């Protein structure tokens, strides 16, 4: 691990200002992803700003009937929250499908959104990776790509976003609240939060330097059947090959987002009009721009069959 200095921030505004002031600074909350990457010297911050004392761990109702989730709410606490379990079951399910009991106790809501890809070429510092070292090339393209993205990919990067939670937040139309180093706040719809790789796969989200996530808000509950179906190589404690997050109403209409297929949670609102026609129609439209490799072409059919199973379950 590279050497760094350490401070504990006392307020969100102070944390953001400190991050903008100090070159090479990073926030640390749960640390489950950042410390792992620091040990491998993939992340090399020179200064860590510990945000754990910022009292951003509350989960509280919003005036419009939704829920405001503090950036520091731990994954296990969010999954166990009675309101989330009752009104946003897809989010509870997604959180519980991710990581292990120990990691969910540490990992935070904001950190989960910001976790980096699990692409083995990103993790192996002997391999080229445009995300880790811009311009060095992509080892996954033409390499072993069974786990990689099938849609929204570029010639620079075919990595996936590893989060389960973010997929559920995408289907729930969550919003990300932040504070900037100058003290101003803004709200970013989850759809615009994560970026596609394009020519700049090292830029993964809409945050500006020093900008700190303070909360994620969920709109008023919409009812319906909430399902998160994750397909993986092990029954527990494994990243998704693909996952389907769905909220389905009694008339067959609903929303669906996919995990494990793109550089961000993948949702195509236009495709949701075809929900009552079944999985094939929806997936054909959602993945119309798919660009698969020999190794990961199976994911297209896997998504279709998983969504079919989800729709059947919702029908009861």
């Amino acid at each position, binding site marked *: *691990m590279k*050497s*760094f*200095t*350490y401070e504990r921030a006392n307020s969100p505004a102070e944390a953001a200002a400190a991050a903008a002031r100090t070159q090479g600074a990073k926030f*640390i909350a*749960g*640390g*489950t992803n950042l*410390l*792992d990457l620091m*040990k491998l010297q993939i992340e090399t911050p020179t200064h*860590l700003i*510990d945000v*754990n004392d910022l009292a951003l761990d509350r989960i509280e109702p919003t005036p419009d009937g939704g829920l405001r989730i503090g950036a520091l709410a731990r994954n*296990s606490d969010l*999954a*166990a929250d009675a309101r989330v*379990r*009752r009104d946003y*079951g897809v989010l*509870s*399910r997604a959180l*519980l*499908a991710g*990581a*292990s*009991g*120990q*990691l969910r*106790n*540490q990992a935070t809501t904001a950190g989960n959104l910001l976790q980096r890809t699990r692409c083995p070429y990103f993790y192996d510092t002997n391999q080229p990776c445009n995300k880790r070292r811009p311009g060095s090339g992509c080892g996954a393209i033409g390499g072993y790509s069974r786990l990689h993205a099938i849609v929204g990919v570029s010639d620079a990067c075919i990595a996936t976003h590893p989060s389960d939670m973010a997929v559920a937040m995408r289907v729930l139309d969550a919003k990300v609240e932040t504070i900037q180093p100058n003290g101003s706040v803004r709200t970013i719809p989850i759809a615009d939060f994560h970026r596609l790789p394009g020519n700049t796969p090292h830029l993964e989200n809409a945050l500006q330097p020093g900008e700190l996530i303070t909360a994620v808000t969920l709109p008023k509950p919409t009812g319906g059947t909430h399902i998160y179906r994750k397909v993986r190589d*092990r*029954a*527990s*404690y494994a990243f998704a090959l693909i996952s389907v997050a769905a909220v389905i109403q009694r008339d067959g209409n609903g929303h669906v987002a996919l995990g494990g297929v793109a550089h961000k949670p993948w949702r195509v609102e236009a495709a949701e009009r075809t929900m009552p026609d079944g999985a094939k129609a929806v997936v054909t439209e959602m993945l119309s721009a798919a660009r698969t490799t020999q190794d990961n072409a199976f994911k297209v059919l896997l998504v279709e069959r998983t969504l079919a199973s989800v729709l059947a379950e919702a029908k009861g």
Partner: protein
Amino acid sequence: MTEFDPTRRQLLKASAIAAGGAVAVGRLAPEAEAAAVGQVKQLEVPVAVNILLRVNGTDHQVMLDPRTTLLDALRERLHLTGSKKGCDQGQCGACTVIVDGRRITSCLTLAVMQEGHEITTIEGLGTPKNLHPMQAAFIKHDGYQCGFCTPGQICSAVAMLEEIKAGAPSHVTGDLTQPPKATPAEFRERMSGNLCRCGAYSNIQEAIAEVAGVKS
């Protein structure tokens, strides 16, 4: 058969020497090495921080490099070597400790981040003369073979049963709006962050079931 009977420890020592030898062979010639050293910028000296760690009910003042993980602080500074370093990346669970009542992997948190928190390690759960019920159950059901993962398994299992008691759901919980039940299926899912390379899982499950008071 006594002529060549190296103990495991001697063998490890011997292979370490062999590995050291390989490094020496790979070294640059002295003049080339001197030139390389000349180009290297002065290494930054890490700034040590003085922190107070509360472990198993006792306060410890320690001066350490901020890079020190909680696991390394426990093992190398406080000499509490019950917590084990398996993968050092949060995948195996051998380093599981309990912080403020919650199980976490101590390899994925910095010691400086844990100042002001109550840390419990396997040494704080029980002693050889006064075993924690989970420790006693692991012995009774032979819930280990080599024992390396055992402290993490036990810390994890103790906190895991508390999570069920507190009503926290898991991936295999049927109805999210109801409290979870203490069942073997729940134990298995919730213990997936603790690997056992010897494969003592079935006996670990029996030990946990006994402490939870259910049939395995």
